[in-house]
């Protein structure tokens, strides 16, 4: 059986690097991996997504609808945008960070009575789809690690805490050290550990953690 991770976020958050690290860790662990990456017009601030599939019978680069084991959202609203890819009852790992698109802010300027679509709006709707929603403060963890751009690595830490994900966290660490810019290796490894710790706190109630 393949293990499917749907990763989404906003252009500039480092989804491609996150995917590369996971893929390298798969290779180190002897697993087949294939991805479908979507970042055409989204240099910064557009919606970006990656289908990541691990396992010998993962043929297609795209995850069939409703067959994602985990949905990773580096930005909260994006989790809802791609929710149909998650299995019913699957695990949604969601950044608490909301980046309001300019079109939404424009609406608020035109009509002052309007309100932003909030984290609470996202999470309550996600919970109607799956009972397993974990909200991670990745930006805070990334800042604590010394580099606010390491949110992606925080989520690698979260993923590596999952029992279902057949990857040795040590292999993920090695892959991070190979793939990130040299001067940021230490910050990324710290972000990874903070992500693991955050996941344990947020996820263990669901019984999905390794230890």
């Amino acid at each position, binding site marked *: 059986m393949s293990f499917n991770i749907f990763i989404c976020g906003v*252009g*500039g958050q480092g989804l491609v690097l996150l*995917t*590369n690290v996971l*893929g*390298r860790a*798969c*290779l180190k662990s002897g697993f*087949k*991996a*294939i*991805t*479908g*990456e*979507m970042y*055409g*017009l989204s*240099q*910064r*601030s*557009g*919606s970006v997504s990656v289908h990541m599939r691990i396992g010998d019978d993962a*043929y*297609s*680069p*795209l995850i*069939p*609808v*409703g067959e994602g084991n985990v949905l990773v959202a580096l930005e909260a*609203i*994006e989790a*809802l*945008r791609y*929710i*149909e890819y998650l299995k*019913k009852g699957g695990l949604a790992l969601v950044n608490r960070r909301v*980046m*309001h*698109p*300019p*079109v939404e*802010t*424009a*609406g*608020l*300027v035109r009509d*002052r009575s309007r309100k*932003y*679509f909030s984290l609470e709006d*996202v999470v309550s*709707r*996600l919970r*109607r*789809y799956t009972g397993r929603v974990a909200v991670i403060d990745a*930006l805070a963890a990334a800042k604590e690690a010394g580099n*606010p751009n390491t949110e992606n690595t925080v989520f690698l830490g979260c993923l590596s805490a999952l029992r279902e994900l057949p990857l040795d966290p040590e292999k993920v660490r090695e892959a991070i050290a*190979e*793939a990130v*810019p*040299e001067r940021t290796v230490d910050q990324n490894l710290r972000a990874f550990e903070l992500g693991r710790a955050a996941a344990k706190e947020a996820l263990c109630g669901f019984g999905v953690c390794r230890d």
Partner: protein
Amino acid sequence: MVLKDVISGGKGQAFMLCNEAIVRGAIEADVKVVAFYPGAPTSEILDTFSEALGSFDYHMQIATNEKVALEICAGASFAGFRSLTAMKSVGMNVASDTLFVLGYTGVRGGLVVVMADDPHAHSSQSEQDGRFFAPNAYVPMLEPSTAQEAKEMVKEAFAISERHRVPVIVRTVTRVNHQSGVVELGEIRRGKFERARWRDLKEEYLTLGEVARRKKVRMLERRAELEKEFEGSAFNSVLRGEGGAGTGIVTSSVSYLYVLEALKSLGLLGRVPVLKLGTTYPVPRRLVADFIRGLKGVIVVEELSPYLENEVAAIAKDANPAAGIFGKRSGHFSEAWELNPDLVSEGIASVLGLEHRDKKVIVEEARALKEGMPDRYPTFCPGCPHRGTFAALSQALRALSASGKGYYFANDIGCYSMWVFPPISKADSSLCMGASVGIANGLSNVIEERVVAVVGDSTFYHAALPAILNAVHNRNKFTLFILDNSVTAMTGQQPNLSTEYTAGWREGKRVPIEDVCRAAGAEFVEVVDSYSVKENVPVFRRALEYEGLAVVVSRRECALYGDRRKRRRGEKITPFEVDKSVCRRPYACIRDVYCPAHEIDGDGQPRISPELCDGCSVCSRMCAFGSIRRAGAGTGNENGTGNHKRDDKEKEKEKEGAGERR
């Protein structure tokens, strides 16, 4: 990208993007000359070759357009050098003039053209099906499904090209180019790059009239030879089914992977025979005939047009006239948009009369949950110079409308295209590279309103120049804004003629746009700094009222490119912040600007995200109260000047850092 995977000498495995695997394949095949004009989804091929340039001995050019890129490769090939170019299939429209004659003239050194279609128009103006170039130009075509196969095919394509003296197209789609996977690395054995002596190689590469007629006959012979070779190609494979007079599947490209996934989910893997074609022009007809003989039905699974389906139907007419052919024509698959595993499952199940897991319930439930959530359109990055240009242009256009004159706005292909998306939604037309200027030449003579056209720097050199010369010569009256952000930004900030650098961060001579326009005879040519919004409004207004061709070059480097250079120089980006005690909330900083870094706080006042702000200062220039300031500065509005002039020491410093990993 992790460069060392691409350049590592040893064998082994690496997890890489298909576009990187293509580069690796070409390097293993000892490619000597590469040339490109960037275009999604192939741009990473250019980028990877550019990064690897320090490691291997090959010649690389970033060309003005795809046609020039193909000609660079053809020239090298005539002298026996293996050469490769890659382009999106709309780029092939530009290059095809040359491709068609190369079919006639033939080539010498292996010439490989990677051509990517973009089903679903993810990052293109159309869903063009580029496969038809191959039969039209009598040029063979290979189609990979995975990164591994793309690498193998590129290597083999060089050999095919040399055996048959013909360019070879390796045709991909976005879901192949932007697919990563585990790739087996082959040995790298590079020959030394040495100039050839034409006098030793001399042969004719020409075609016209009588010569063309003779060569056409030779092309037909070559096609027959290629078809015979492809009958036995390892890129075509048959997955056996249980046999019997059942239904089989013919497929290619990424659709093959969707077919495997669909058969798995339907429990049919190993039960339904599948013919996977890797050589799709010429189609190996005997192989297809052998596959469909005895079958009751054939399902053809492919994206876009019924290219293979027409071939299969024609072959079946002789080989198995009773077989049902299912695909686009039967209505089981659409010619619109890309396929995916679910659409393929649904199509196969409906042909076979099987139950399949209907995903409509999930999709409907998701749709209901998404109600009222905001869209996230592609938009200008924080710090993007286009934001400043358009802020001033919006004001100038409003003034033009208020005067009763009105305008037509022709947009073009580049980051500035995003002005067509909400919340701005401004453009009367947007077609293809450089077309805004051609359209302006036509419209400005037939409508009352002022015609305003926009192109970027890269588009200016690529395809707009002939239309600009046309405007000068014919005394056409319109306003042209050339947005010069120093690089080809949308495809990943590749250098172009407006950059001091070229491939591999080597020196390149800048070709200043304003000099070209003035030399061509344009009489109104102004150069402005994109960030100077207020100062630019009167300049833009004059340009809109000018009786003749008015050219405005709005210049500021792309923010992403600029950020990278700042990082290399060790400069910090200082964000701006709103002084809430001064802000009176007219939202001028948001209107006409719409920056992703801006949000409205709970108290109704604007807030600037320090993580997203690029410190460009444009919003601060819009505020009449001076409430937006650089963090820690404490002074009023900022009026910086352009940053194009830099001293040599700075340049040196950048070059030193150029080899660092991204």
